[in-house]
Structure formats: C-alpha cells, structure tokens
C-alpha cells in the first residue's frame, strides 16, 4: 500500500507522521529535534485533509520513532498517526496516546526552576483535574501548570 504519494514524495523506509494539525508541523520538528539528525526529512505544510481541513505531514527516512516519542506527539497533535514504511509499504500504523510523563521537550514556565540550567532535561507528569482538564507538574520545582501554559 502506498500513502500520500501525490502530496509529498513517498519514502522508501522510515516514519511518516501524518494528520498533524496545520501550523504544528514546524513546531514538532524543532521540539522533537528531528532536525538534529542527518536523516533526510520531507515536510508538507497545509496539505488538504478530509479529517482536519488542513494538515501538516513529516517524513523521516530510515528512522523509526520510539513508542515514547510517538506518545509525546499526542500532547501537540492528539489525532496524529505515525506510519512505519518499509520498501514503500506501510508496515505499521500507530496512534499516539497521551503519556504519563513527558521528558525533555517542554520548558518549565517557572523562571526560577533549576531545570533551566544547562545539561538538565525538563520532566513533567500529567495530572488529571476535575472536568477533564490536564495539568502538567514539573518534576523539579513541583509546580503545577495548566497544559496550555506549558505548551504556549
């Protein structure tokens, strides 16, 4: 089975992150440091999508995202799908689910938090709140923030 061949050039082997809400694709690239690899990356922005109206798509050759990485995608683009491609064939399709904790990619909004120092990776856990809201709690300073504050 071939996917999205007409929109963005198909890749032979690797991961395709599909159904990213438009405007978010670029953010994911930098947040997840996908650009720090030597791997060939193709991106499509504002592509037509039945589900979302407009969507972004990222294809990374010869890289298979880890389960953790995939789940961390869920906080920025909850309806993304990750397709694994081998020899141009779809060999796996994964739907991210919200992880319990999220390491490295977020920045603690507390300016006096030690996690801003060099060589420290941030780390947050999700805290479920009444009326289905989600807070993020910094492992270091123990402060709790609403999801939107940390993500903005």
């Amino acid at each position: 089975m071939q996917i999205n061949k007409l929109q963005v050039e198909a890749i032979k082997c690797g991961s395709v992150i599909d159904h990213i809400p438009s405007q978010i694709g670029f953010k994911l690239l930098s947040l997840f440091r996908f650009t720090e690899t030597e791997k060939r990356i193709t991106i499509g922005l504002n592509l037509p999508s039945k589900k979302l109206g407009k969507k972004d798509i990222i294809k990374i050759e010869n890289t298979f995202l880890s389960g953790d990485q995939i789940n961390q995608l869920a906080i920025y683009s909850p309806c993304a799908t990750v397709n694994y491609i081998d020899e141009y064939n779809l060999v796996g399709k994964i739907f991210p689910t919200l992880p319990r904790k999220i390491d490295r990619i977020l920045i603690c909004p507390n300016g006096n938090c030690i996690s801003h120092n060099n060589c420290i990776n941030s780390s947050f856990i999700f805290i479920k709140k009444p009326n289905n809201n989600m807070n993020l709690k910094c492992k270091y300073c123990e402060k709790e923030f609403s999801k939107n504050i940390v993500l903005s």
Partner: protein
Amino acid sequence: MRNSLYKKNIISINDLKRDELELVLKKSAILKKKSAPDLLKNKIIASCFFEASTRTRLSFETAIYRLGASIIGFSDGNNISLSKKGETLADTISVISSYVDAIIIRHPQEGSARLAAEFSNNVPIFNAGDGSNQHPTQTLLDLFTIQETQNRLNNLNIAMVGDLKYGRTVHSLTQALAKYKKNKFFFISPDVLTMPNYINNMLLERGISYRRCQHIEEVISEIDILYMTRVQKERLESTEYANAKSKFILSTKSLKNARSNLKILHPLPRIDEIDHDVDYTPYAWYFKQAANGIYARQAILSLVLIENHF
C-alpha cells in the same frame, strides 16, 4: 518497625508517607528525651549552603554534632570557588558525594535538591530549602511541635496567618496535616496573598474543610494552633501594607478568648507580626518550636543513615 526511610532522599514533604512521618516524630521524641552522641559516629555529612540561611544551617549542624558526626561544607554559595569557576550544581554534587555519607543542600532555585539527588550516586540528599519550593525538615519540626503540644495530629483546628501565597512553610504544613483526619483550616491573609488554588483544591478533593477569614479574633476561640508568618513589605503596596500590618499582627488583646491549649507557632525570624508581649503568654511556643528543629533534624538524619535503631 521497619525503617523505610533508610537511604531515602528527603526532598519534599510530599514524598513522605504518613507512617514515615510518624517514624520521624517517634524518633524525634526519643532523641529529645535521651541524646545519642554515638549514633552517627564516623559519618561525615556535607552541609552545602549555596545561599545563606544561618538559622537552618546552625540547626542542621547542631543536630549533626549531637549525633557525633562530622561536617564539611560551606555556608554561602557566592563565596566559594565552585560557583566562581562556574561549575554546575550537578558536577559539584557528584564530587562532594564521593567524600561524604549524606549531603544537606540549600539552594536558591526550585528543584535543586531533586536535581542533586540525581547526581549524588545514591548518597542521600536532605533538602534544606530549594527556592520557594520545599523545606521538609521545617514541616517535620512543625508537626513534631504540634503533636507534642496537642497530643495528636488529627481533629485539630489550625489557623494560618500572613503571607499564605508565597509562604512555603504553610503550604507544606497544610499538605502534611491533610494526611490526617478531621483537621480544619482557617486561612487569614491579605487579599493579594491568599492560599494558592492548588492547596485549596487539594483540600476540596480530600473533603477537608477550610475557611478564609478576615481577623484572628474571629477564630481565636475555635483554634488549637495559630501559625503566624511574616508579610513581606515588598509583596504589598504601601497602603495595603499599612492596612495588613494592623490586621495581621498578633497582640495579647487578640488572644483574649483563646482556648487554654492554644499554641502560637512561627517559622521565625519574626519581624513585627507578633508583639513582644505575646512572648510572655503561655500560648507562645515559637522558640520551643525552633528548639525542636534540632530533634526533628537529628531524627531524620539518623533514620536515613542507619537502618536499625529501634
């Protein structure tokens, strides 16, 4: 009793389970009755104060000497070669952990103690205050004092007065007392310095009742513990401060209808929020509370460093 605190990092009061709190309180009482100068003989403890806090440091250091251990360390992070040379906290802790059996750390940034624990190669870390975040031994000595004066930690009416927004001692103490049943809280503070929502929500979620009040006099006849804290001038505009001063200062007059078992606590230093006349009433307990800090710290140090001593 199994000592589950052995080799544990003491970073946040929230990390301690209720039976662990009880273990510390029990041990504090034992050490208060009978000193144990050989308990930590041959142990070396680092006292690393990256910001000055003379009271806390002296209290910890006294506790260490009373247990027979030795101390290395520094008392002001600005004046040590470590920070002048720009070494990271992680590296400093890694190095010091190879010298000692435990590390006490005071640092101006929130989360520093948690970070230190990640680089201490299993040498236990004691948080002596990380920015506005946690100061768990303060809470332990507060609990010990409350239990000692009231013979219980449940079914108490506790009023907290002053800066409830930024006061980390009142946050931690509320969190700790919320682990016990039937405690009731009264929060008395200027409007701009009220208890943060995460504390209020925690109480609501656990079905614990709390009330915001305007004056100490309103609740004085109902309470067992009056926990005073300082309102820092910088936190308020000058008119607000003048107003707050008159409202949140404790005088002997406000104690007129107090219960006989009432005890007034304060994490100290006091500036002017408790009139000096109050010191001579039987309710004043803040200096005894500070003295209890030695026993609570002796207790937690010995429990973390020795597996069996009951």
